């Protein structure tokens, strides 16, 4: 994982803690069973939160389709750039009403399906 992503991850854990989301034990690094999509899911610092969000994507395609679409555009370690590029290009979609970069929405939906 790139340094930038780690910093972001730490900040996010801090954010989550500040918002009262985490129990003490949650602050330890989480481990997940391997999946065929780990190349993608590894980019999510907090897969649990992403999964909670992604489960709300109405009419989401199956995991294989989501993964194929994500792999076509998302390079390893480039989630931030992809998300920003999505927003700049207007590639946004709603999940439970939240306007999200498409890559974030799809990656979260994938997390909810494994």
């Amino acid at each position, binding site marked *: 994982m790139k340094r930038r992503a780690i910093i*972001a991850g730490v*900040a*996010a854990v801090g954010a989550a803690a500040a918002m009262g*989301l985490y129990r003490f034990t949650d602050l330890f690094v989480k481990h997940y069973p391997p999946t065929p999509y780990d190349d993608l899911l590894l980019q*999510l610092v907090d897969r649990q939160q992403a999964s909670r969000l992604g489960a709300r994507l109405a009419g989401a395609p199956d995991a294989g389709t989501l993964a194929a679409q994500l792999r076509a555009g998302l390079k390893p370690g480039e989630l931030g750039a992809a*998300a920003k590029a*999505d927003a700049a290009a*207007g590639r946004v979609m709603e999940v439970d009403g939240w*306007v999200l970069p498409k890559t974030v929405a799809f990656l*979260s939906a994938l997390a909810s399906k494994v």
Partner: protein
Amino acid sequence: MALSLAGSKIRVLLMEAGGINFDPTIQKMYSGTETGTRYAPLDAGRLRQLGGGTNHWGGWCRPMDAIEFEARDWVPHSGWPFSRLTLEPYYSRAQALVEAGPWIYDLKGNADNAAEGTVLPLNGGGLYTSWFQFSKMRGDILPTQFGNRYRDDLKRAPNINSLLHANVTAIRLGANSKQVERLDVATLNSHGGAGKHFTVKPRMVVLACGGIENARLLLASNDVMKTGVGNQNDLVGRFFADNPIPRDIATVVSFSGPLAPFYGANQNLSDGTIMRATFAPTAKFCRAARIGSSLSTIETPVELDETGKAAVITTAIALGVDASNAKAYSLGCGMELMPDPDRRLTLSGDKDALGLPRLKLDMRIADDDFARFNRTMTELGRQLLASKAGMLRISCHTRDDWMTRMDWGHHHLGTTRMSADPKQGVVDGDLLVHGVGNLYIAGSGTFPSYSASNPTLNLVALTLRLGDHLKKVMA
């Protein structure tokens, strides 16, 4: 209207149906019926007393945007007979009358408020931070109530005679239907029944009874023109509009923590001006996305549900942003409706105490009005993401979602619309009723297409222009 003629050579008779104070018996004259989309009762959104609706208005002021005067091909029936430039010379006087302080708005709003906090970076996209100013009556009473505030000025003006409790009940045209010959006027007795009757023979008449009542008087005055005065093209009462102001229609999250205070509350500047920020669409975005105008304003801090927290955490991590102080707010809005000829006022069978037929409002709001607004919200959400400043949740997806949050501005628009073409408008660009040589109409009922900006500042500017016009034609 009367004040704009104060000190001129024109002798003015101001007839006001109400008194100085609120009187429920007089107010009852305003009641009517509503069908269709749930709307405020017709006697609730206006006041029949000197100063009218300004006795309970909110004082929110903002000039209309130039694009709102244009014929917009995606807004049916849109376009004023003139551009905003025509009203420009009157805005500063209107601003003084509504007592909203120096003209700042978008000219200096950002700069002046920068010291008080940061304007959200929105990356030059479809929406920008724009500004309201607020009416503030002398002595710090908010906002200016025209009756209270200007009563003495009316008394002092040697050429203005004011009659309170004088209800105009009919506009009587001459047999050729080209001129108003007289006005029938009546008072209510102490039991709320018909009191005294008299007539007035004016040289010129300006109807300034509000966007609903103007239409009622025209429609009810049907002895010579059977469809009502000025209604030869069946336009009077049609195109009624208001600004829907639903609450909590979206949630805005600021990643970096609390937004500058001027987003969620009125801000007092050192010179006494009161301002508040709002998100407005640019003209370029309105054209590209084919949307109507809207003004979206931060309301109150809100707690996010579990999905909301997950959305913020996941998105902030993805964007590489520290959201540890993230703060969420509800967003309310004021929307411009698309003009609709079938959203209309007609006369009902009921009559008031003076025998004037009451009104029936057929209220409608199209799903498309909501859909257009949600395109605006999607763009704001996109901008927040692109600038890494935050994110947005759209809360309304069904008609029910909208209607449970619905409130109305009580801005009565469109019922006596303005157009140079008599087939498209009740009044012309000078507010003269088409086909009647001495009858003018003042107020927001003349707005042919609308705006999301609150109407009063704009209708006052339009009325001042009418004052200048009358001085010219009556000289």
